[in-house]
């Protein structure tokens, strides 16, 4: 595997018309980084030319925040204003997940195009074509998180965590989105079509968001469901974001959420690169 073990300056000698040349056997860390940035540049160009890629991170936060707050607010918390501190972090997690689901679908679509054959034929790190879109998608997660928080504030939400708390919650949402995106990136590399990625992603995303404490307090659920909700990593992210937004506190939940994200990346990033380099 040529993943990140690239500090070796091993070279291989080739004899061409130009004479004998020594060529690096692997891409270096610096090369890997600049190649990933070049791929990120490509992804942002693509985004700018296909603005519909932003629908899920612009319209959905506006719509879902307003809709869920007015529908469930009275029933769950007595009033919309009392529900906002619960629902805003929930919607943040939900939009982050939807946004990173799109990462996998778009990757799959992209991989079916001829240009990915060229990427594979170039002497570049195998991770670059996957890391590029992942970096560019930070914009999407950022947009989604910002719009959700702003919609909440417009509806009367006054986060108790103050500016720092809100900033930390915003940042955690983006980190969580970026980390969970590797699950969907992996799906993108193994599935046969973009539709398949979409289908599988839906089956993963819906249970993860709705069987969590994103919209309702976990203790109102039947015992067996409550047990699942409590181990669901999305619940940890939601609770952590709530602690940051509403109380401005770095609680243990924040730690658990970050550890959860790190585990997801540690498992799915190498799997994705492996599956990508073996495919096609």
């Amino acid at each position, binding site marked *: 595997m*040529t993943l990140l073990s690239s500090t070796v300056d*091993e*070279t*291989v*000698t*080739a*004899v*061409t*018309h*130009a004479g*004998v040349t*020594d*060529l*690096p*056997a*692997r*891409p270096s860390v610096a*090369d890997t980084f*600049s*190649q990933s940035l*070049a*791929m990120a*540049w*490509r992804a942002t*160009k*693509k985004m700018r*030319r*296909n603005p519909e890629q932003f629908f899920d991170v612009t319209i959905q936060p506006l719509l879902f925040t307003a809709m869920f707050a007015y529908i469930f607010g009275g029933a769950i918390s007595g009033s919309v204003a009392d529900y906002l501190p619960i629902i805003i972090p929930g919607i943040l997690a939900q939009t982050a997940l939807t946004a990173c689901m799109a990462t996998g679908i778009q990757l799959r679509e992209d991989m079916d*195009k*001829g*240009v*990915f*054959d*060229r*990427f*594979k*034929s*170039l*002497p*570049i790190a195998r991770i*670059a074509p996957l890391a590029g879109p992942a970096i560019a998608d930070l914009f999407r997660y950022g947009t989604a998180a910002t719009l959700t928080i702003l919609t909440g504030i417009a509806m009367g939400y006054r986060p108790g965590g103050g500016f720092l708390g809100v900033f930390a919650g915003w940042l955690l949402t983006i980190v969580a989105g970026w980390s969970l995106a590797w699950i969907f990136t992996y799906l993108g590399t193994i599935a046969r079509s973009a539709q398949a990625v979409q289908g599988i992603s839906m089956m993963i995303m819906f249970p993860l968001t709705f069987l969590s404490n994103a919209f309702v307090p976990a203790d109102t659920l039947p015992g067996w469901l409550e047990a699942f909700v409590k181990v669901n990593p999305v619940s940890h992210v939601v609770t952590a974001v709530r602690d940051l937004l509403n109380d401005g506190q770095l609680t243990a939940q924040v730690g658990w959420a970050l550890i959860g994200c790190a585990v997801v990346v540690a498992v799915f990033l190498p799997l994705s690169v492996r599956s990508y380099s*073996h495919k*096609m």
Partner: protein
Amino acid sequence: MTKTHDNAPAVLATGLVKTFGSGGTVTRAVDGIDLEVVRGEVFGVLGPNGAGKTTMLQMLATLLPMDGGSATIFGVDVAEHPHVVRQLVGVTGQYASVDENLTGRENLFLFGRLLGLDAKRARATGDDLLVRFGLEDAGDKRISQFSGGMRRRLDLAASLIARPPLIFLDEPTTGLDPRTRGQMWDTIRELVRQGTTVLLTTQYLDEADQLADRIAVIDRGHKVAQGTPDQLKAQVGSSTLQLRLLDPAQTAQAVDVVRRVVGSDDGEPVLTPEAGGINVPLPDANRAADVLIGLREQELLITSATVQKPTLDEVFMALTGHTTEDQSDQNQMEAVR
């Protein structure tokens, strides 16, 4: 670890094998092909759709793992050091592999950046290549607005950014109109003048003839012949006279006349599936007149006569005894993949 290979050829492949499918339906797309491409030459791989040309190229370019055999590029083992091989080979695919979402200029900039050029040099190299390939006016158009020929040229330009010593061209002109095809040939010749080694696949005998120093003919995953274009064409004659007799019953008589007039040094006359049809290999197109006079003297009437350059079909017929159409099952295999 350092290895030296003093006289390593550009490509050296032995016993290449690639199988697709599993269980009862395994297809050997490439079935034990040996190949040697000398530094500085243009080597053509000729074969119909589904013969295994593209698959072979993809294995040599590290795009597909080999199921058998081994290959080196300038002495570097393909399976062992794929990253090094990728630095030595530029690949231009059968379908333009440039980014549809970007403009021509942006495509070249992206590939330049990926290949380690700084932003300034990536831009300059891109501009240079656009001029060299006559694409400077189209540089700021998106690829989706490019014509087929422009895409192929941009694709080839993108393969040249890193100035690789070896270029793989997979059917560089399939689907292009004759004028664009000629332009593409000129571009390839220019490349060769500058010392690049080229391995190209094609379905067209005349393309291999125009460009290649040596040709290998591939059929159903096997190499069936190899040689210079002249040696290959000598097996089918340099042109073919296609005759159609008025009375199919006179076919045998007509074949006798043909044998007497032109001999069979350039190949036997071949009966075509149509009644009364005969294809006569000729050493020289001018000999067609002799055949026609011979037939006239015997009062054997014809309905049509055309002189044609030999086609890939005829080379195939001569080399393998079957036509290229017999391979439809393998075409499907390649489409599925």
